[in-house]
């Protein structure tokens, strides 16, 4: 892409909406499908679209995020010019009156100032796909839009809190939660840097809290907007239940292959672990397992992260197990999410429901 597009992942507006899973980490660094974290998809999509400089507005709980993003090469951001800037709160201006996520835009102004290109693509991490935004950017530029909202048009709109776009022609005229509206909004938008700058100014001058809600959503009629349908497989996250369902949906072999192992691979931090060891009398079916894991028991319809131990006679069914968990012999898990470093002691049974998976917080011993 000629002059280049700046990538921005804004975690500030995202709540800690995943309950136990976001007790200790930001929404973007929640583990997903074994090796990944939710932010990987936004970063990979940007990298695959030729974006080489990405800023991440990290509001709080960003320790794991800093560690996860410390090698840009792992995410395919290669070359001297490529950068990932994780930008924690840094309120450096004594005359600063900005509020909400405007604080980030104001105090990290250098990110935008130093970038030579004139477009910015902004994303959150509550939506994932394996999509190249190159075409969306082309559409945005060719039509000289101020703001292009990236989403998808679906035939059977889901019953969910996903925000929808009201459209007239290819103009976006509003946002809604109307459950019959099939224009799902991904939270991704491409915006002219100049327009963004003016919105930031307006919001700060008028004591606004939210760049998106106050500066864009409430003032839509002032911009030349567009809607770009990415026509891709997508997943939206808005609760632990949706997190669980998305994980289970990706256990479909074809879906998993298409999503992770298609032409473009989802990238994540490279770490080193030995291959997964499946011992005698173990059983694994319809599951994904990550390296460093040893299986002696049974794993069915589940997602297993790195360095997990599943003991003899233990059963893990319809469950999600994060890294470094130990499931001792004879334990039984069903519809459960185990956060990192959890130990389930010998013979223990934990059974949640599909609608409400039982979530065990980090480092617990049960």
């Amino acid at each position: 892409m000629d002059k280049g597009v700046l990538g921005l992942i804004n975690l500030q507006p995202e709540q800690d909406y995943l309950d136990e899973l976001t007790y200790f980490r930001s929404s973007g660094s929640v583990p997903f499908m074994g090796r990944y974290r939710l932010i990987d998809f936004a970063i990979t999509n940007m990298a695959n679209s030729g974006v080489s400089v990405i800023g991440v507005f990290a509001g709080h709980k960003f320790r794991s995020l800093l560690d996860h993003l410390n090698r840009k090469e792992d995410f395919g951001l290669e070359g001297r010019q490529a950068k990932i800037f994780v930008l924690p709160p840094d309120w450096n201006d004594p005359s600063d009156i900005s509020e909400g996520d405007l604080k980030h835009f104001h105090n990290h102004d250098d990110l935008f100032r130093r970038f030579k290109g004139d477009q910015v693509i902004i994303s959150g991490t509550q939506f994932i796909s394996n999509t190249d935004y190159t075409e969306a950017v082309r559409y945005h530029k060719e039509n000289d839009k101020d703001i292009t909202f990236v989403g998808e048009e679906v035939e059977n709109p889901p019953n969910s809190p996903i925000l929808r776009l009201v459209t007239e022609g290819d103009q976006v005229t509003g946002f809604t939660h109307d459950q019959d509206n099939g224009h799902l909004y991904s939270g991704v938008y491409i915006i002219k840097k100049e327009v963004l700058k003016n919105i930031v100014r307006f919001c700060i001058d008028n004591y606004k809290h939210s760049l998106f809600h106050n500066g864009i959503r409430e003032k839509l009629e002032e911009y030349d907007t567009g809607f770009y349908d990415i026509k891709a497989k997508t997943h939206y996250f808005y609760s632990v239940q949706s997190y669980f369902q998305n994980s289970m949906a990706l256990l479909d072999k074809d879906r998993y292959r298409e999503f992770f192992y298609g032409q473009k691979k989802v990238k994540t931090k490279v770490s080193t672990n030995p291959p997964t060891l499946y011992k005698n009398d173990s059983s694994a079916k319809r599951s994904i397992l990550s390296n460093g894991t040893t299986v002696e028991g049974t794993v069915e319809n589940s997602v297993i992260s790195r360095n997990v131990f599943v003991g003899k006679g233990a059963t893990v069914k319809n469950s999600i197990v994060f890294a470094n968990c130990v499931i001792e012999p004879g334990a039984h898990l069903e519809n459960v999410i185990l956060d990192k470093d959890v130990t389930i002691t010998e013979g223990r049974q934990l059974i949640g429901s599909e609608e409400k998976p039982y979530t065990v917080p980090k480092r617990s011993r049960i």
Partner: protein
Amino acid sequence: MTSKTVAMLLAGGQGTRLGELTKTLAKPAVPFGGKYRIIDFTMSNLANSGISTVGLLVQYSPLMLNKHIGIGKPWGLDRQYGGVSVLSPYSSREGSAWFSGTADAIVKNRHFVEQYEPDELIVLSGDHIYQMDYTKMLEFHRENGADATISAIEVPMDEASRFGILNTNDDFSIYEFDEKPEHPKNNLASMGVYIFNWSTIKPYLLEDEKDEGSDHDFGKDIIPKMLEDDRKLFAYRFDGYWKDVGTIKSYWEANMDLLKEDFQTLLMSKEWPTYPNEENRPPEYIGETAEINNSLISPGSFIEGSIDNSILFVGVETMEGASVKDSIILPDAVIGRNVTLDCAIVMSDVEIPDGTRIVASNDEPVVISPDTLKDYIAEGGSQNG
């Protein structure tokens, strides 16, 4: 301490007896253990021992090897001082020549060694599977005030004639080095790991370079010469796992050893990790029909069918009804529906058509490359080794 030690890692060997596996690949670069290459064990030993100045001597088919090692990042050897340097044969004002032996490879690169003014030179091979702390051997070497120390391992007596045998006194000082003796006097075999005092070994190397009758080999020429001169040579006994993967059979065995409870620290150890040059691939997908027993599976794989006592590398796909037993499947190979493999080594990217049956007999694993695969299919899909 460590900056005073320079390691020279011999990785130029052709590995002729590995047949198809080394047809276009240097032996140290041959894939091993699911996501590793043979040289990763030695590279990880260096990393874990804190030896950070390494010369990697390449010669035979080095493309993959060079790419794999790169600037040594996976092993923490991407350094401003020292680090890993790939040393290939080169031409100079004096002419150009290939490395004609292990000692020759070192002497031709003495300018590399000398820029670090080391006390000791460690000479290593890139084609052995073992986990060894070189610092302990260095301590032993220094305590003895030795000129040279050779690490040694006990091998079964009936195999001793395949190795360089060290005949030692009670204090492990060496009085004789028997290269592949017909009648070995004992079973203490050289592992091809040498420590030399640089100031001592340098004149020997220079002299050997001029000797036209020499094979320029440490075992055959340099060590015997040093013994002749009554230099202080010691054997450093190592009693862990060590395997020279010189043949297809031993390559297969060494891989299978990884599946044995006793040897699982080769990959699984947290204290002495083995570092691969890891790729960014998704976790493996284990399908509805998969039945896996005592096997290693690597990222990017899609598994169906029965996998028994086997090692599957990254990106492997096995289809429904496949039966893979005692086999090694190298990266990105595809095993079709209802394929039977018993004691096979399937090379990278090979796609085995549905229904193919390949069963090794006479104890010798079958290597399936794109070339040999045609033969098996032409012969009706049923074949032995």
